[in-house]
C-alpha cells in the first residue's frame, strides 16, 4: 500500500454528489484568493525590494474605493457560500418520508445495528442501492459519531436522545464506517463497513439471515414481562392511558405543556415518567431506568408504534 496515494474519497450517495459540488466551488474560491495574495506578495517583494540601506518608500495613500471593494466582494462571496451550505445541510438533515428506518446503538467500542425486520448486525450495515435509509441513533455511554466518508454523512450519537440522519446509496461497494467523535481508549477501533448491494443481491443477503424477530414482537413480549400491560391495557381500572394510536399524537402534560409523542418522548417517559406526567392520570408509573437497555427501549417503542388507534395493548398474548 506504500505507493498508493488516494486524493479523493469514493462518491457513493446522492448527497455526496451535491456536497462535492460546493466543495469544488470552495476550492475554486480558495485557489483564486491564494493566487491573488501570494501573487501580490511575490510581485511586491521582488519589484519593491530594498536596493540601498537608506532607501525610502513612497508615502502611503489611502484609497477608500479599494477598501470598500475588498470588504464587499468577500462579503458577497461568503453569503453565497452560506446560503448554499445551509441548503445542503437541510437536505442532509431531512430524510424523505418514504425512507426505511434502521436503528443504531453505539457503545464503547462497537456499533449495534437493527433493521426494520429485526435483523441485527454489529459493525456492519448492509443496504440496497437506490433506497433512502433513515438512521435513528443513540448511545449507551459516551458521545460517538456515525461517519461514512463515501456518503459525506456524519452525525453525533448522543446518550439520552435520538438523533437522525439519512442517505441514499448510489454505488455498490464496501465503504468505511468510522466513529468520528473521540470516545476513549479504543476509539480508533470503533470502525466497521457499510456494504451497498444491488437490489437482487441484497434480497439474497436478507434471505440468508437467520429468521429474525420483528422489533415490535420483541417489544410486545417485553411489554408483558416488565408489567407495562397491567396498567396500560386493562379496560376497567384506568390507571394508565391506552397506547393505541398514541405515536405521533399531541399529548397534554399535567402542567399544560403540549408535546408530540415521538420516539424521544416515549423514551424519556419510560425512563423518567415523573418529569412528564400526563394530564388526567395520577403519576404512579415507576421509572425503568437501569432495567431496560437502549436496545430494549427501541423494541418497546417499536411495539407502541405498531399499535393501531383502536387496538388496545394486548401484551404478548
Amino acid at each position, binding site marked *: *500500500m506504500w505507493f498508493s496515494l488516494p486524493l*479523493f*474519497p469514493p462518491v457513493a450517495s446522492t448527497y455526496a454528489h451535491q456536497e462535492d459540488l460546493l466543495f469544488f466551488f*470552495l476550492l475554486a474560491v480558495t485557489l483564486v484568493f491564494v493566487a491573488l*495574495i501570494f501573487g501580490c506578495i511575490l510581485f511586491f517583494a521582488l519589484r519593491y525590494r530594498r536596493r540601498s540601506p537608506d532607501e525610502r518608500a513612497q*508615502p502611503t495613500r489611502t484609497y477608500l474605493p479599494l*477598501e470598500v471593494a*475588498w470588504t464587499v466582494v468577500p462579503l458577497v462571496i461568503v453569503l453565497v*457560500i452560506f446560503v448554499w451550505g*445551509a441548503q445542503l445541510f437541510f437536505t442532509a438533515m431531512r430524510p424523505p418520508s418514504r425512507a426505511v428506518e434502521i436503528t443504531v446503538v453505539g457503545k464503547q467500542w462497537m456499533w449495534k445495528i437493527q433493521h426494520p425486520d429485526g435483523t441485527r448486525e454489529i459493525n456492519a450495515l448492509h443496504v440496497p442501492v437506490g433506497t433512502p435509509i433513515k438512521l435513528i441513533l443513540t448511545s449507551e455511554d459516551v458521545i460517538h459519531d456515525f461517519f461514512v466518508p463515501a456518503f459525506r454523512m456524519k452525525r453525533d450519537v448522543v446518550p439520552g436522545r435520538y438523533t437522525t440522519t439519512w442517505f441514499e446509496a448510489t454505488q455498490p461497494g464496501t465503504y468505511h464506517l468510522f466513529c468520528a467523535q473521540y470516545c476513549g481508549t479504543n476509539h480508533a477501533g470503533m470502525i466497521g463497513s457499510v456494504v451497498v448491494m444491488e437490489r437482487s443481491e441484497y434480497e439474497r443477503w436478507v434471505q440468508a439471515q437467520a429468521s429474525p424477530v420483528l422489533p415490535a414482537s420483541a417489544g410486545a413480549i417485553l411489554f408483558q414481562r416488565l408489567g407495562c400491560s397491567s396498567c396500560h391495557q386493562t379496560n376497567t381500572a384506568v390507571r394508565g392511558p391506552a397506547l393505541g394510536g398514541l405515536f405521533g399524537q399531541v399529548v397534554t402534560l399535567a402542567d399544560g405543556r403540549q408535546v408530540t409523542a415521538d420516539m424521544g418522548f416515549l423514551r424519556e417517559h419510560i425512563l423518567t415518567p415523573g418529569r412528564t406526567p400526563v394530564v388526567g392520570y395520577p403519576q404512579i408509573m415507576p421509572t425503568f431506568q437501569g432495567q431496560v437497555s437502549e436496545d430494549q427501549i427501541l423494541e418497546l417503542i417499536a411495539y407502541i408504534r405498531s399499535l393501531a388507534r383502536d387496538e388496545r395493548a394486548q401484551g404478548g398474548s
Partner: protein
Amino acid sequence: MSMVQTAPSYLEDGHGLKSWLLTLDHKRIALLYLMSIAGFFFLGAIFAGLIRLNLLTPQGNLVQPQTYNTFFTMHGLIMIFFFLIPSIPGVLGNLLSWYIFIVGGLFTVSAALFGGVDTGWTFYTPFSSIYSQSNVVLTVVGIFIVGFSSILTGLNFIITIHKMRAPGLTWFRLPLFIWALYATSLIFILGTPVLAISLVLVALERVFHLGIFDPARGGDPIYFQHLFWFYSHPAVYVMILPSMGVISETVTCFSRRKIFGYNAVAFSSLGIAVIGFLVWGHHMFVSGQSLYAGMAFSLLSFLVAIPSAIKVFNWTATMYQGSIAYDTPMLYTFGFIGLFTVGGLTGLYLAAMGVDIHVHDTYFVIAHFHYIMVGGAVMGFMAGMHFWWPKITGRLYPETWGRLAAVITFIGFNLTFFPQFILGYLGMPRRYHMYPPEFQSLNVLSSAGASILAVGYLLPVVYLLWSLRYGPAAGANPWRATGLEWLTPSPPPTHNFETPPIVQDEPYEYSTWEAEVA
C-alpha cells in the same frame, strides 16, 4: 551607540535569583514568561513528534492506544493553554500572573506524570465526567488556575492601555500591536470565567456525581459543549490576534511604509473579538443542536471571516511601493500572511454547514487549525521574537541562520500539514491511533514534514542562545523602526525612559521618521 547610557540596563539592574523572582519590571517578567513558554512549547512539540512517529504505520504500533490518547491530549493541552494562549500577551505580562501560570502548569504536567489524561483538550462530557479513568480532576484544576493568569494579564493590559499611555499617545496613535492586545484582553476577561465554570462543573460532576451532564440524571452532555466552546472559540482569536498585531509592526518596518488603512486594521481586531464570541455553535453542527441555531452560527462564522480578510488585504497593500528588506522577521511575516490566508480560507469549508458535515472531526479540521495556530500564531511569534530580540538582549543574531530557519520552518510546516487536508477529505478521523492502510502514504509525508519542522524550531534555539554571548551589539534601533521602544537603548534601562517621551506622530511614519534617525 550614539546615546549615552545613564542608567544600567534592566538585565544589569540586580543579579541573583531573587532579583528575578521578585521583580516588578515588566521586561524581566516577560523574560520569565518567555523561558517558561519556550519550555512548554518544546514539551508539547515532543508529544507532537511522538504522535507523528506512531502514525507512520497504519497499525500505529509504536504505543498502546491509551498511551496515544494521552499523547494527543497533552499535546493539545500544553500547546493551547501553556503556549499559544499566554505566548505573546504573557511575554508582556505581570508577575502574579506568571506565578499562577507556573502553578497551573505544574498541576497539569503532574497529571501527565501520574498516568496522564485521555479526554482530549476538549474534555467532552459524559466521557470526561463519567467514563474516563484518567487524571481529569488534577488536569482541570491546572487549567482553572491558569485561567486566573489569563484574566490578570487581560486586566493588566486594559488598565495600562487606558491609563498609562505616554503624553501625546492618543488612541489612534497606538501601534496596531497594542490594539490587537487590547482586543485579546477583552476576550481574556470576558471568556476565561466561562471556561473556568465549565471545567469546575466537570470536576464536580466527577467527584460528586451531580448529573449536570449525565442524561441518566436528567442532565445534558451537549450543554457542556456550549459552555466549553463559548470560551474556546474566542480563545482561538486570543491565539491569533496578538500575532496579527506583531505582523502589523513587522510588515511596516520592513517595507518602510505606513500601514495601509490603520483604522480598518484596528477595528477589525475589535470586530474579530466581538463577533468571535458569537460563533461557538459552529463546532456543533452535527451534535444535535437545532437547524436554525446552526444557521445563525454559520452566518456569524462567515461574517467573522471578513475582518480577517481585511487585515490580509491591508498588510499586502502596505507592501505596495514599499522598500522591502528580506530580514528574518520579514520572512516570517511572509510566511504568516501566506499560511494564515490558507488557514482562513479553509475555515470557509467548515463554516459551510453542508460541507462541515463531511469534514467535521477529520484531519481537515486538524490541518485547518494548525495553519492558523502554527502557520499563523507561531509564525507571528517567531517574527516578533526576531524583531524584538535585539531590543530584549541588546544583541544581534546571525541573520543568515535566521533566514535559513525561517525557510526551513515554512517548508517543513507545509509538508506536515498540507497532506492532512487531503487525509481529512478522504475521511480520516482525528484522534485515531491507527488507520486504514490506504491512508499511509499521506501520513508518512506528514511525519516527514514534522521532522523538517523540528529542525526549523531547533535552529533558532541554538543561534539565539549563541547570540547572547557572541552576537554583535545591536544598538538602540537596528531596524530603523519607528515606535517608542526603539528610542531607548538596547537593552533598555529598568525604567525604560529617563523622561517620558512625548508622542507627536501617528505610528509607522516611515517616510518622515527616517531622516531623523539616519
